[in-house]
């Protein structure tokens, strides 16, 4: 099952099933999201690392993916939010709250998958806005970002 399908399936599960299996479902969402970042890294010729940041491989993979690609920080908060919602789902004593947290986590995981899939197709996604970089300058070999000679 693709990470996106996994997130969709979990988001659509009934409350009782979500609450009952909160711990394995939270883990499944984290692993599905890790696989999204692994695909990105492999697609860019890198070997996904096995390290962790703050106890989470997802954050380490994100940092690895964002190195040299600041626009990848467009999904930094999504990674952190996903972990937050999964943690809350795991520790909550309340059935409804556990289910709600997992559903939100699934929606965040879906966003992460959509963003990365979009960026695999269109590398410029997040480039102009989240990293404040120009889209065309580097394509044209203008390392400094300035069209030499145009201003003189």
């Amino acid at each position, binding site marked *: 099952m693709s990470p996106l399908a996994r997130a969709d399936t979990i*988001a659509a599960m009934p409350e009782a099933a979500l609450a009952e299996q909160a711990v394995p479902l939270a883990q499944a969402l984290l692993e599905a999201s890790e696989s999204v970042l692994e695909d990105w890294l492999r697609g860019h010729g890198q070997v996904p690392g096995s390290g962790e940041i703050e106890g989470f491989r997802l954050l380490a993979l994100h940092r690895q993916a964002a190195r040299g690609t*600041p626009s990848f*920080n*467009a*999904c930094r*908060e*999504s990674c*952190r*939010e996903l972990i*937050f*919602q999964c943690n809350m789902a795991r520790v909550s004593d309340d059935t409804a709250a556990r289910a709600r947290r997992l*559903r*939100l986590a699934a*929606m*965040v995981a*879906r*966003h992460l998958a*959509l*963003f990365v*899939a*979009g960026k695999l*197709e*269109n590398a*410029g*996604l*997040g*480039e*102009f*806005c*989240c*990293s*404040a*970089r*120009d*889209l*065309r*300058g580097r394509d044209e070999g203008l390392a*400094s*970002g*300035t*069209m030499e000679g*145009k*201003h*003189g």
Partner: protein
Amino acid sequence: MSEKSGISSKYRKVAYYPGCALEGTGHAYNRSTKAVGKALGLDLVELKNWNCCGAMEVKNIDPKLQTFLSARNLEIAEEMGFATVMAPCNGCYHNLKKAEYDLAHDPATRETVEMLSAKAGDVAYQPGHVSTIHALDWIREAIGEEGLRARVRNSLKGLKIANYYGCMYTRPRHIFPEKDQGPGSESTNAPHFMDDLLAAAGAENVEYPLKTACCGGAHTLSDSDTSTRLVLNLLTTAEACGADVIATECPTCHSGLELHQARAAKVFGTVTHVKILYFTQLLGMALGLSARRVGVHENLSDARDLLRARGLG
């Protein structure tokens, strides 16, 4: 610093840079921002002969030219005697902040801006002279949450709001040195100024986990399907969070949400019902202004029935 009126003297009167979107698709944001300012006793003085901030068109081809364009607006503010310029559009706000940062940190950028300014017959803007703030900063700093609460005439009580900040208000973090400075400052990880203001106006903010998530806005025309999928997830998540309304603080985010809401229904067959309103429209109605006065009728997302049912506008 506060005057007897409870308004910070520093922000009572600021330079106003609407930017081009607020004269077009974001007209309702322009209208509601000015109306809220007036209702709060604040003065906005529009920059004379302002130009485009460089937006994405210039920036994507020649970022230093974009810096010059943004810097020229900062110089105009200074020449008009202002130390603060308020830009309600996230794109303009971001570009002016980036110009400030680049001029302060990159000699090559400074050199280009000085050269272009000389060619244009302008004085080159020197970094550190004018501070750029967003409409959220302006209202929060000028009036404060307590001040706003005291001025509310028509509480937003019962209205459930998901606050969507978009990306350019907080990213990249290095161009916003005033953020992440502890209590009282804005957070780039979890921004809250819009939540704070709308809560002061009586609204019930829902927990929204995608408040800074990508909407694909910059690729809305070149890769519409990606944008629609991302926006659809923003909308369905807001609905799952129980929101009646998504509050926005950027004309690009706002149009993107509205247009892709319609496109998602047409292309993917997924209909969502959450309404999209500028935070200034919501604040305006809380201050007793009519829905028409704050331009609700100009939005594509028709919230009039919802607002009437809640006794607003």
